[in-house]
């Protein structure tokens, strides 16, 4: 009672908490279930058969840049900038030269594609051209590589020269730093410095000139090579065009000849056809005349046949009438014969029925007699069986069972009875295997006198000789 009263403050708290739990659960369900509904956002995929050409160019440019940058970064900048510019420009030129060759080769390849469908000979020529182009490309690359090597060598030379110069300067500088006060010494040092400066300048100029010469040589070689290649290409093109023109001319001639022949053949065919048509017309006319004659003859024959048919039909009608009369007579005869036969059959059937009934009656009588006999026999058999069972039961009641008799023992006795149920004789026909059981049964048979017999004395004949079977099972 009182606990319920004191539980009241909990009720509100508990209710609020329950609501909170449910809200949390539904929020979880709501957000949890709506996550998976959003369909995946569509993606746009471009399928490219081949990579665009722009991506290939930077790859080729990059290595040269990579080589060029370290040179710019080197400390020899104050001396080298013009060289670097020249080198870069030279590279650019060489690249610009190499690029057009590439585009030309592409165009050629396209032409080859078109030409492939036309003729095979051109293909061979162009394949050769392709090979040449590739060889040229390789040569150009080699030239570039040589160019770069030359540059690297120049850079090395310049670096060596500079190192030498610096070493010399360093050797020369210490006196200048140590003896700034002594004028004679300083003058000497100034002179020496000036000389060194001149030497440096001379060195630099020499280096510049050498590098320029080398660059120019390389450029000239490149130009010569490229020109030679262009010439070779031009010659090859010219040859190919000549060949193509000659082939086209030959083709045109062949076509013209073929057309002329075809025209001549057509004319001959036309003439032949015209003659054939004339002949055909003549033949058709002749045939038409023959047909007309044939038709006239056929009409005459048809008329004759029609007359003959009418005559024949009249004859046939007369004959049919006669046949009909004969048929009716024959049918009447047949009917009379059938009636006679039917009457005979009916008489025969009646006779057969009577005989069958007689036979059935006899069979019934016999069957009833047999049944009566059988019933008597069954009754006798039943009584005999009943009394046999009674006899066996009475004997079994008198058997004194011994403990050690096997369960499946089975003894058979032939028992001879006197009227009144006394046992005249009992003989062991089949011993059971256990002598104790056999003797027990024999004793029981004697003890069971008088055995029960049916009151009807006529049945005693069935009981005079009995074969009785005994088994401890039953």
């Amino acid at each position: 009672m009182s606990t319920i009263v004191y539980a009241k403050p909990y009720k509100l708290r508990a209710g609020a908490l329950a609501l909170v739990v449910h809200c949390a659960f539904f929020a979880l369900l709501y957000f949890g279930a709506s996550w998976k509904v959003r369909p995946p956002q569509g993606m746009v995929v471009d399928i490219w058969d081949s990579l665009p050409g722009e991506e290939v160019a930077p790859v080729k440019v990059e290595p040269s840049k990579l080589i060029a940058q370290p040179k710019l970064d080197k400390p020899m900048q104050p001396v080298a900038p013009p060289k670097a510019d020249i080198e870069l420009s030279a590279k650019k030129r060489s690249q610009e030269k190499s690029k057009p060759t590439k585009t030309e080769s592409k165009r050629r390849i396209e032409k080859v594609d078109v030409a492939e469908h036309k003729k095979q000979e051109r293909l061979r020529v162009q394949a050769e051209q392709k090979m040449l182009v590739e060889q040229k490309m390789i040569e150009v690359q080699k030239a570039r590589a040589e160019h770069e090597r030359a540059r690297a060598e120049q850079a090395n030379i310049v670096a060596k020269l500079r190192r030498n110069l610096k070493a010399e300067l360093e050797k020369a500088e210490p006196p200048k730093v140590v003896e700034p006060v002594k004028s004679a010494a300083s003058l000497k040092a100034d002179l020496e410095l000036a000389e060194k400066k001149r030497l440096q300048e001379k060195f630099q100029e020499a280096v510049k000139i050498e590098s320029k010469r080398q660059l120019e040589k390389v450029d000239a070689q490149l130009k010569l090579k490229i020109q030679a290649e262009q010439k070779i290409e031009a010659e090859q093109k010219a040859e190919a065009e000549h060949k193509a023109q000659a082939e086209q001319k030959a083709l045109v001639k062949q076509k013209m000849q073929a057309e002329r022949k075809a025209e001549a053949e057509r004319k001959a065919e036309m003439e032949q056809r015209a003659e054939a048509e004339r002949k055909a017309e003549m033949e058709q006319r002749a045939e038409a005349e023959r047909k007309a004659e044939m038709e006239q003859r056929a009409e005459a024959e048809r008329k004759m046949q029609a007359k003959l048919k009418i005559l024949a039909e009249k004859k046939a009608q007369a004959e049919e009438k006669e046949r009909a009369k004969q048929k009716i007579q024959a049918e009447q005869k047949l009917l009379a014969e059938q009636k006679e036969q039917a009457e005979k059959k009916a008489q025969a059937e009646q006779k057969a029925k009577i005989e069958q009934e007689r036979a059935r009656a006899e069979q019934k009588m016999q069957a009833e007699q047999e049944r009566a006999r059988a019933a008597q026999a069954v009754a006798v058999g039943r009584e005999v069986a009943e009394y046999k069972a009674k006899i066996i039961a009475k004997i079994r009641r008198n058997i004194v069972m011994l403990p050690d008799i096997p369960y499946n023992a089975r003894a058979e006795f032939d028992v001879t009875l006197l009227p009144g149920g006394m046992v005249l004789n009992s003989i062991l026909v089949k011993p059971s295997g256990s002598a104790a059981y056999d003797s027990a049964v024999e004793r029981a048979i004697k003890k069971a006198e008088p055995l029960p017999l049916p009151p009807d004395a006529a049945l005693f004949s069935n009981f005079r000789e009995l074969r009785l079977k005994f088994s401890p099972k039953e």
Partner: protein
Amino acid sequence: MDVTQDLSFIHLIQNASVLVQLVMGLLLLVSLMSWWFIFIKMFTVRQAVKQSEEFEESFWNNDDLNRLYQNTSVMRGDSGSMGRIFAAGFTEFLKLKKKHDMDNNAVMDGTRRAMRATYQREMDSLESHLAFLATVGSVSPYVGLFGTVWGIMNAFRGLSNVGQATLAHVAPGIAEALVATAMGLFAAIPAVIAYNRYSHDITRLASRFEIFMEEFSNVLQRQS
């Protein structure tokens, strides 16, 4: 029915058939009730344990039973179940003691009877609502299952009108129906857990009360 249909939770509940909606409503109500009782039981059991611990401590530390009795009768409700049992027993003992012709055994029997009556009343109030929790725990899954079966039946009946049956035709219906089972389980699982937990707690409390009653009657017998 599109495959890309909105299968959000609210949509599922809205699209369900009326019977399934009813089942879901019932389950929601039952779940609310069961959670309410769970919290009430949680607080009451916790309080009962705490109060009985306090009372036992004061009982064994205090030699004067009369003062303890006055304290508990002043405190009334706050003394807890064990305090009330003690008060009932001691009141009966004092009343019977006043009648001088009473046998000692008879006094003790009367006291014990009074304590047992109070004990039964306390147990009854502690065990209230536990039966509800047990019922919810055992029945609500079946109620939810009923709603689900009904919903699935409807889904398949709708399928018979369609020539070529695809999963997309059945799936929303089944999803709707399964919400009912989810709710049934949501109501049942905490109820079962709470029932087992609280029945165990209350059994322990009961054995504690009985032990106290025996000990207290021994103390009274010594005094009488």
